[in-house]
């Protein structure tokens, strides 16, 4: 079973991202589970969401304490919340940022593999959200597909189109672009 933990801020769509990733993996025949950290939703507040992907039935119903993958939708969360707690040795960290992977060190994590991509600019280019608050959840899923090989980019694009009610093509293309531009 692979466990993925999403960290974002209210309004960025972390919860939806966890759901779309599950949907894409399900389309490829996997068993899945996706759920938010059940807090009170406020724009800008730290948000956590979870996805589990497995070959077998998923029975567990608690939070993810030892993730294989971290997806960070907002780099300002780094240092602000204990992001890497429990990350498995050699775990992957995917960050939405303009900076290269070498700029990031996570002293508490054991040999993490860091990947970066500028999802915010790509989202804006596809007119997703505003300059102040780009909606990066669909974009970053392309990067997740590339960094983890858990699902194909096609499954991500199909799941995006199924789950997002408006600007379906733009959202899917944003995911495709981060898939191509991921660094790490």
């Amino acid at each position, binding site marked *: 079973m692979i466990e993925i933990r999403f960290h974002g801020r209210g309004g960025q769509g972390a919860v939806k991202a966890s*759901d779309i990733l*599950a*949907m894409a993996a*399900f389309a490829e025949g996997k*068993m*899945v*589970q*996706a*759920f*938010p950290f*059940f807090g009170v939703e406020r724009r800008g507040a730290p948000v956590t969401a979870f996805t589990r992907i497995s070959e077998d039935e*998923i*029975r*567990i*119903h*608690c*939070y993810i*304490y030892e993730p294989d993958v971290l997806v960070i939708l907002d780099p300002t969360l780094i240092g602000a919340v204990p992001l890497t707690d429990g990350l498995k040795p050699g775990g992957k960290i995917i960050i939405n940022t303009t900076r290269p992977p070498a700029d990031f060190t996570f002293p508490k994590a054991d040999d993490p593999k860091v990947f970066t991509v500028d999802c915010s600019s790509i989202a804006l280019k596809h007119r997703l959200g505003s300059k102040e608050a780009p909606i990066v959840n669909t974009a970053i899923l392309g990067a997740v597909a590339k960094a983890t090989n858990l699902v194909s980019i096609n499954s991500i694009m199909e799941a995006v189109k199924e789950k997002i009610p408006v600007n379906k093509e733009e959202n899917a293309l944003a995911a495709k672009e981060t898939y191509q531009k991921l660094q790490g």
Partner: protein
Amino acid sequence: MKKVLTGNFAAAYGATAAKVDVVSAYPITPQTTIVEILSEIVADGLLDADFIKVESEHSAMAACIGAQAVGARTFTATSAQGLALMHEMLHWAARGRLPIVMANVNRAMAPGWSIWADVTDSVAQRDTGWMQVYCENNQEVFDTILMSYKVGEYEDVLLPTLVNLDAFFLSHTSQVVDLYDEKTIDAFLPEYNPKIKLDVKDPRSFGALTSPEHYYEFSYKMQIAQENARSRIKEVSAEFEKRFGRKYDLIEAYRCEDAETVLVDYGTIAGTAKDAVDRMRDRGERVGALKIRYLRPFPVKEVCRILNSARQVGVIDRAISFGHEGPFFTEVKAAMYGSQIPIWGFLAGLGGRDVSIADIESVVTHMKQNEPSNIIWIGVKK
């Protein structure tokens, strides 16, 4: 057909698949999406049902009682304070022998104001005469709604069912759910046609003044109905397995055959406990888990059959009966009366506190190191 659905969607689709005639409900977090989805399904003409809008949960249950009494199959859903507000009507539904099915998203009672998982809301309705089921996953929510109509509608049962699902851990968690196909479901659950109903062409009196001459016998018959339900649940579960390939019963024993320690649990904690049991088994510890599905009718015989071969038993409750102990712990202890097997009562996860694999392992560790006691608070900050 398999889909990725939240528990609330599974509940709404369960009612839709049961082809209910009337839905009446009032929204409350975290149940809200059940009502939203059903109102859309009815408005879109995908379900030939009446959606009765009401101003409170008390009225929602009253509307279901009226509709069910004239022979309609009805559904409603609620949570916590909403269920508490229905309390009076719950007695009317059960004693009126109306097999209504209601989904209750288990949520903690306020104050402190909480929207998170806790079963105090449903346990507080224990003596209303409703059957009560606690679900582990979203598939079980969908399946249990279908089975509950079938069980409740037998002439020798005629009782309503409360189908419980944990707030957020099911209500807002997406999982794979098989929705089967319409034909198979229709063959399993035929139309509801009660012999006795409110009908101007066949006038009868319902809910009339009942003197001591008859009330005692009414109560006796309620109890007989609950006892009949035990065998009907087994029968319906067996038919369900034949048609849909999924096995249910009053309880579910997981790796209990040679277990020295058996953990008793219910709801989503039961799922996490299965993974915890596997981990402990990998370390050579002989641990099993017993999930209780039905609080009413309580499966006394089935629980004893499993626990009598254990050396020690620990019950994990997501609620407390203040001034006493965990409510399921009380039931299990009473069922085991006369047995010499030591039983511990644990509390965990009240008000939506996460219950991890480590928490469940700590229960077993505690039992190794301590004498039995009735109230052990897992992870409480004192």
